[in-house]
């Protein structure tokens, strides 16, 4: 049985880790490098770093930050935000990241997934998707894909997009529920389960983690392979160890020594 992964997510804005609710009202929390080291030493299984303003400011990702994290973190970390070209993917990987997360770019230019997977390997191309609930009947899954930080609606069905991305060659899909983001009310289990049981690649649940029980739920009911945590650990309310102890008690396989 493969161990379920706990992945803290660091949203970075102006070289500070920040966190909002439903992609809005962000508050600065701390230094990304210090936080990355603390989580890595604290037993997280992977890290995600998003340069959340790169895209909006139309500038490339902060590569110096990626390089600094790569020097001190020796577990896998994914990087996203401001990726526009294959060269951008190369420079992020070459700075020490294990994976690159593409989101808006993949919607705009799906071919980049296939090209990136071919050139760098599927394992390092992660599709990030931001689905939001929709009552419109044209979305069979009940969720529509949004992009650019919940600023644009794409008209694409979430499950169709996940399957298409798998066919194009992504190695993993991060399903970030816009409705649950930052609420700490629990993951959107139906959405996670729907995607995870309909693709053959690992699915990472994101958005809504507030208590260790939410993680238990997303790995059992939600059928997730990994889960992202942010507010619940950034606030200091829970440590990675506490979350893992709770998961282990519930019989979910986790990495307990590090």
């Amino acid at each position, binding site marked *: 049985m*493969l*161990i*379920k*992964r706990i992945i803290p997510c660091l949203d970075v804005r102006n070289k500070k880790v920040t966190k909002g609710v439903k992609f809005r009202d962000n508050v600065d929390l701390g230094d990304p490098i210090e936080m990355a080291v603390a989580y*890595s030493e604290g037993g997280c*299984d992977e890290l995600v770093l998003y340069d959340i303003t790169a895209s909006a400011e139309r500038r490339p990702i902060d590569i110096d930050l990626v390089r600094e994290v*790569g*020097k*001190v973190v*020796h*577990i*896998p970390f994914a990087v996203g935000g401001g990726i526009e070209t294959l060269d951008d993917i190369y420079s992020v*990987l*070459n*700075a*020490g990241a*294990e994976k690159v997360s593409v989101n808006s770019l993949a919607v705009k230019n799906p071919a980049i997934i296939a090209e990136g997977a071919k050139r*760098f*390997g*599927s*394992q*390092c191309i992660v599709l990030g998707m931001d689905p939001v609930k929709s009552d419109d009947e044209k979305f069979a899954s009940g969720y529509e894909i949004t992009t650019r930080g919940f600023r644009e609606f794409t008209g694409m069905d979430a499950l169709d997009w996940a399957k298409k991305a798998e066919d194009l060659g992504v*190695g*993993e899909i991060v399903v970030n529920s816009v409705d649950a983001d930052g609420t700490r009310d629990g993951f959107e289990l139906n959405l996670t389960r729907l995607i995870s*049981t309909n693709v*053959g*690649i*690992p699915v990472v649940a994101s958005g809504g983690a507030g208590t260790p029980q939410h993680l238990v739920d997303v790995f059992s009911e939600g*059928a997730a*392979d*990994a889960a992202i945590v942010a507010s619940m650990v950034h606030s200091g309310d829970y440590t990675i160890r506490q979350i893992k102890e709770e998961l282990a008690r519930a019989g979910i396989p986790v*990495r307990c*020594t*590090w």
Partner: protein
Amino acid sequence: MIAIIDYNAGNLTSVRLALEYIGADCEITSDPKHILAAERVIFPGVGAAGAAMAELRKLGLLDTIKTVVDNNTPFLGICLGTQVIFEFSEEDGGTACIGLVPGAVKRFSSSDPMCKIPQIGWNTVQIEWPHPLFEGIKDSSEFYFVHSYYPSVAARSYVMGQTEYAGVCFASAVGIGSLFAVQFHPERSGRVGLKMLENFSKWVPLC
């Protein structure tokens, strides 16, 4: 000096950064002269076996790798680097490989929808032999894996560590003489992985 063999098979930065972190001197190179002159050699890589073998042939590195091992230079294979030292891989419609370790590399197959392929994540390694590279590493420690194919060793004496996934128990670490090769990524496996690289940087094989 540790030579990290560069054959256009994935990103080698993480290997270099991990070695620099433990204070080991290293160089990323595809120059046979540099590789043959190095005190130790790391053969990493991610990607597909067919493309990797073609690239190694093009760069004239197949004989270099055999010579390194014949010279008893400490040699560490990682992931795809490990797979191509077997005799054969099922990948890319069947690929003849270097053949330093007897056996074949096979694809995981799983009927369980909850068992995703590739395996991406942490899994335990049962230590089968107290090899010097496992010094200070507890049995059943977790390492980071990313792969769709696994080594199937033809002779048990090569098996140093084992891991279970998708219903198979495969050799996640193999060794013979100065050669040690792992399916997982020590450079991405946190403290235990750094410990293994540190062990490698000091290892003097008994040959």
